[in-house]
């Protein structure tokens, strides 16, 4: 659009400011924290939290990388049986939010849990080990995050340009050498992207570590705010968490560096498929085990709970299952997610348009980058930031629906923005110029051409923000007004009190609502959208 430059700057700067405000407030708040508090935080909390968080993040990253990488390789380059079924099925654990996965496993392995019942039903009375602590948290986070790595690496293996390995072959490289000196380096961007994603995922996770009682920065921050309303320690801890996040993003940036990784084109020639021979059946069993662990077991557990909830007469009426409260919390979730998604799309549309059309404008590029920042930050940090913003500016609105919406918006802005910019990128500038020459004003062109053509992108952006907001836990939990239950909050509260029957129905609803998410990821993965 032929807007004046100040207007363009204005739009992008305002959006960037809104999105950056929580982050700024955390830093500003930390600057005002008393020295004695800093001292106490650094000596008492930071060392062990740091060790815990780093070890967890490293373990989860390595685990997810190996698991996702192996599965991607099996699906893309070997003669694994039932590949057509396994390839999409391996992505489906995504539909289960991580904290629901955690609560299913806590109960399954717990005392008198579903696992024991199942085994005694099968005539095998065993006591299962509890899975609290590090190993349990790592296991569940790996299970919850490997689909991202799998998707990214699989797309990368699929799109790798065969000419490179052929060239290496003509230069005398054997199979192993080609793997080490050509294929792996070409997969490096996918590998780093996957590791940074899972690293951030593990670092920012709230639900799993809290349920499994493994203290990390995130759970410590939550306890400081929620348990003792101690903002200053939470603030100080947040700074360390932010530092870690920056560090991870910086590492990714330097690893990719100056080298450019492009697959030149898609080849018609089929890739050679590795014959697994005797390992075919074990490999298939391994894949099935992963699908059972990530999808079948948790959903089965939830089904069992809702079955027993509808049959057993509950003694405690407040924790009993009731349709009214389920519908009420469902509506609350939908309300929050709808407002967030709509606001997100509305705000990201102009910024995305400007950042695509004014690629070379530094100011706009930077503000687009700043606006997307909230996505990399853990949800708890964003929630703390928003809470601080309201405390400084309008204290009455702190802990309100507005606060939740703003936190979610800041957190998920990037998702919507990415999709919409991708959509606008597809619309050639020539189309706009053509419309202008045919007598359409710039605003009309925007309405008639751009908006019409990017409708699918707008819709998927809206949907993805909507779904992410539905599933988000820490910000909804921390910022909600008293008595305001959304589905996630309901699951969380019931589960943390041990009333699993009550958690089952909202959890299943959340999973059902996530189905389109899995579909969109499966749909996109063959376009190589890494």
């Amino acid at each position, binding site marked *: 659009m032929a807007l004046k430059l100040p207007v363009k700057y204005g739009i992008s700067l305002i959006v960037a400011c809104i999105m950056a405000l929580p982050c700024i407030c955390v830093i500003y708040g930390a600057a005002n924290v008393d020295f004695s508090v800093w001292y106490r935080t650094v000596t008492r909390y930071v060392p062990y939290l740091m060790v815990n968080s780093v070890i967890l993040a490293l373990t989860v990253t390595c685990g997810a990388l190996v698991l996702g990488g192996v599965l991607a390789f099996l699906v893309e380059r070997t003669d694994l049986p039932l590949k057509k079924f396994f390839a999409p099925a391996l992505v489906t654990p995504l539909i289960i939010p991580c904290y629901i996965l955690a609560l299913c496993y806590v109960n399954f392995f717990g005392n008198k849990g579903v696992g024991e019942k199942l085994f005694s039903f099968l005539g095998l009375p065993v006591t299962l080990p509890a899975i609290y602590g590090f190993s349990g948290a790592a296991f569940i986070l790996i299970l919850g995050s490997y689909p991202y790595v799998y998707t990214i690496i699989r797309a990368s293996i699929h799109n790798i*340009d065969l*000419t*490179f390995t*052929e*060239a*290496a*072959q*003509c*230069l*005398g*490289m*054997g199979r192993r050498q080609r793997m080490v*000196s*050509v294929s792996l*380096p*070409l997969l*490096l961007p996918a590998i780093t992207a996957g590791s940074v994603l899972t690293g951030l995922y593990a670092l920012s996770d709230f639900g799993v570590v809290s349920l499994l009682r493994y203290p990390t920065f995130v759970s410590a921050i939550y306890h400081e705010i929620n348990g003792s309303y101690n903002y200053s320690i939470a603030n100080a801890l947040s700074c360390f968490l932010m530092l870690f996040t920056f560090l991870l993003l910086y590492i990714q940036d330097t690893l990719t560096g*100056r*080298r*450019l*990784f*492009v697959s*030149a*084109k898609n080849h*018609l020639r*089929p890739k050679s498929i590795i014959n697994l021979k005797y390992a075919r059946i074990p490999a298939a069993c391994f894949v099935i085990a992963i699908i059972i662990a990530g999808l079948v077991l948790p959903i089965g557990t939830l089904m069992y709970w809702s079955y027993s909830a509808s049959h057993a007469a509950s003694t405690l009426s407040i924790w009993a299952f009731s349709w009214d409260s389920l519908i009420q919390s469902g509506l609350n979730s939908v309300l929050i997610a709808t407002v967030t998604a709509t606001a997100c799309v509305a705000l990201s549309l102009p910024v995305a348009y400007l950042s695509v059309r004014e690629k070379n404008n530094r100011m706009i590029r930077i503000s687009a980058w700043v606006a997307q920042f909230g996505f990399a930050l853990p949800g708890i940090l964003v929630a703390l930031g928003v809470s601080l913003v309201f405390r400084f500016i309008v204290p009455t609105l702190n802990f309100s629906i507005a606060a939740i919406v703003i936190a979610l918006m800041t957190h998920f802005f990037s998702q919507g923005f990415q999709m919409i910019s991708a959509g606008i990128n597809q619309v050639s500038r020539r189309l706009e110029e053509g419309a202008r020459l045919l007598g359409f004003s710039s605003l009309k062109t925007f309405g008639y051409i751009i908006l019409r053509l990017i409708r699918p992108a707008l819709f998927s952006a809206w949907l993805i923000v909507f779904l992410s907001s539905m599933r988000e836990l820490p910000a909804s939990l921390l910022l909600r007004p008293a008595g305001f239950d959304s589905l996630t909050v309901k699951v969380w509260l019931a589960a943390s009190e041990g009333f699993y029957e009550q958690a089952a129905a909202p959890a299943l609803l959340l999973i059902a609502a996530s189905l389109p998410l899995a579909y969109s990821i499966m749909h996109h993965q063959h376009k190589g959208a890494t």
Partner: protein
Amino acid sequence: MNLNAIDTLSETMVNRTTEPYVQLHDVAHTYRIPACDKPPFTFGPVTLAIKKGEIIVVIGQSGSGKTTLLRLISGLERTSFGMCRVNGSVLFDKNSFIPPEKRKIGMVFQDHALFPHLTVKKNILFGIKKMDKKFQTNRLHELTDMLGIQNFLNRYPYELSGGQQQRVALARSLAPNPKILLLDEPLSNIDAELRNNLAQELKSIIQQTKTTAVWVTHDLNEALDTADRVLVMNNGIIEQFDTPWDLYRHPKTKFIAAFIGNASFLQGHVSGNHIVTEIGTLPCPMQYRQIPVLEVMLKPCDLSVQQHTAGIGVLIKKQFLGSTFRYTISLPSKQTVLSDMPPECNWELNTRVAVNLCISEAVVFPTVP
């Protein structure tokens, strides 16, 4: 050592000297393009002999099997029909197959396939990584000096222009001193202006290094310009394999005549030792004297055309090619012929012209009814 062994030894020595450097015998291949319902693509059978140090240019339309030929020689494609030998040792035959990495055959790919994660220097040294360091540095200097790329050894491939990438790709494949160099449309991604110079440059470097090369292209000028011999492929088989001049002057088929020299064809009747056409008479080659009707190949430079009010031809189409005008001339029998005229012959369309033959020898093809 017994006498028999000496006998076989001397026999192989004799064979070595008489046998061509590269030899393909009855090589055939069939493959189906996946996710495509078309019938399988067939290649061959192809029999071919190349001398050491020769530059062979393979030309043909897309899908004619040019690239398949390269991929079979390099081993990237595998077939069980036929035999291929280089310098006396078997690359593949019915029972054996040497994998590509053991063949010592260099290949320059269409889009260069320079490793995007390695610098220019590392790309060039990729194939000789295992040699000792001194050899590596010597070879690097030798090649980069020859190709004029010493200044961007530390750049990444995408930071180079198309022509520079081309040179790096050539350096990389020449570094291990390959037995044969295969080039798969090496200039197809290069600007038209640069292409001519670069083709000459590549040719001189290949000649300097005394490399035997098989060069695939679909650009006719590039082929005629660089080749010692040209291999014309059509529908998976060899149409003709000859020097550029013979290809131009003595095409074996009408396909080649039309493909190589923009030839047009004019019907002629054999009478005695001559062929009579409507624009003149030519001596008839011996083997065609029994056939009553023949087609005479006419290149655009085979005719002399003058403006003449009583001429039999009419100009019906005019193309300006820069250094010449190409006129399409309609004759009374409705047949058309092409003629190239110098730029000063800038005539109007529909001008009447007199058309005469200015060749003394005819290339003829039997008429296909």
